[in-house]
């Protein structure tokens, strides 16, 4: 897989490993393409559509999402053209209609010279990028949350909107959420996420809270550790 392909991005001749995406190649060359649903640790998904670019291949131009389009020999990519900017402006308007308050969205909108969204929607703020769901599946590996319903009513939810049985309260979904929609708080040894309270394990020596009990149970189960392994925190050992 060490094959390299040659492509041009914004007139710059670049070499990228075969199988990588346009977004990765642009990132390596320090060319900025706005994006919300991409993280190097997660599989490409192509949900937010902000990363659209214009490609020319065999004399035909078209708009593609750069985070899921693989590089190819002789590909010509333009990241800033009138057509691309028009698409991005529409996309950011649609995203803003789902979440008006997000600073991240507003910053991108400002760069694209979009003042406000033309669309009015009664949606709480999730932009359905799927970062939380993919993180839960690919990084944490517990599959505690997923999509619910379709179309307009689609949202990210726990199974049956109840207390998530598989959730270990690690909070990665709250960390990764680009618009800070997932609520997370921690107070007096109780972590609250997905409307559920998770008690934290207390170190028997120093009294500091280590992590949610469920998370430590998950570690013990997957790593085959003794039952009292997490009674004492790292520093007291």
């Amino acid at each position, binding site marked *: 897989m060490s094959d390299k392909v040659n492509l041009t991005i914004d007139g710059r001749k670049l070499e990228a490993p075969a199988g990588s995406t346009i977004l990765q190649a642009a990132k390596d060359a320090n060319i900025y393409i706005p994006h919300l649903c991409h993280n190097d640790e997660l599989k490409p998904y192509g949900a937010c559509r902000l990363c659209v670019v214009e490609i020319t291949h065999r004399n035909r131009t078209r708009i593609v999402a750069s985070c899921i389009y693989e590089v190819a020999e002789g590909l010509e990519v333009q990241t800033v053209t009138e057509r691309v900017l028009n698409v991005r402006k529409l996309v950011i308007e649609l995203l803003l209609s789902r979440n008006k308050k997000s600073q991240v969205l507003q910053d991108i909108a400002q760069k694209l010279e979009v003042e406000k969204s033309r669309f009015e929607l009664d949606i709480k703020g999730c932009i359905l990028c799927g970062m939380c769901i993919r993180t839960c599946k690919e990084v944490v590996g517990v599959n505690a949350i997923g999509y619910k319903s379709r179309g307009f009513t689609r949202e990210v939810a726990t199974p049956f909107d109840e207390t998530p049985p598989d959730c270990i309260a690690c909070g990665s979904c709250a*960390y990764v959420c680009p618009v800070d929609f997932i609520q997370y708080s921690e107070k007096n040894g109780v972590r609250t996420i997905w409307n559920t309270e998770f008690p934290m394990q207390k170190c028997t020596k120093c009294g500091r809270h280590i992590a949610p009990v469920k998370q430590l149970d998950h570690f013990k189960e997957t790593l085959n550790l003794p039952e009292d392994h997490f009674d004492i925190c790292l520093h007291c050992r």
Partner: protein
Amino acid sequence: MMEPLNVYASRLVNSKEFFVSGHKSCQGCAEALAVRLVGKALGENVIVSCATGCMEVVSSAFPHTSWDVPWFHTAFGNAAAVASGTEAGIKAQVRKGRLPEKETVILGMAGDGGTTDIGFQALSGAMERGHNMMFVCYDNEAYMNTGIQRSSATPLGARTTTTPAGKINPGEEFTIKKNMPEIMVSHNIPYVATACPSYPLDLIEKVQKAAKTKGPAYVHILSVCPTGWRIPSEKAIWIGRLAIETGVFPLFEVVNGRYKMTFKDLELRPVEEYLKPQGRFRGLAPEMMEKFQEQVTDNYNDLLKKSGLK
């Protein structure tokens, strides 16, 4: 406030390194860790000007370098001046159309000597002129690189080679640590923050905020130095945590003059827990300990008042 999440969330942080391994810092150096985290937070679109000090010595011994981004070595005192010049230069080149507009982050970095002592007037000038740059101070509380001499960031009672133990006092006798973040707040700059590599996600978040700020930004990072603080190298992260938990180095950020504590309901532990494990405070008289505690509590309460929590 993402700190307790760092089991899985830390895997989602930028996996590329810009301060790469192979440098010559001591075992357990938290400053090298802080530089690495700052590099991860800023990405490749950055130009660094680094003052003389530990990080310059360990990372750029000819012909090797640990830096994967454009990096200047400046004299001891002028990291901020060089950074501000870089910013002005890029601005002029962009205006003349010779460079594309890429929003490059201009980072000045120095140790506590290069910030609070020698580089102070260059930094003060750069901040006052309002350049669109950020400055990071890696504070290990003495001139560690040249052999642990005291600086103005050395705390009360700490033993260094220039403040050795005498018959009455074990170390630094009269002076308390210079409150650098507060001095930076008085420059009326849009963003000031304190961070510690023992809380990596918080550090990354603050550095990214500083980079996004239009105008000057300052981040003060406490970097534990096992060699100079006389602690075992594996305890560096733990001592960093204790510094925050005891209130010796409170974590906060000041955005446009508004204070915000990072840990809102922190019950302070006694300062003794922080001082006892460190060899540089060995033999500290109980009166000095009390004085230290008093000063820490005052400072912390002051911060709470400013942030409207008390």
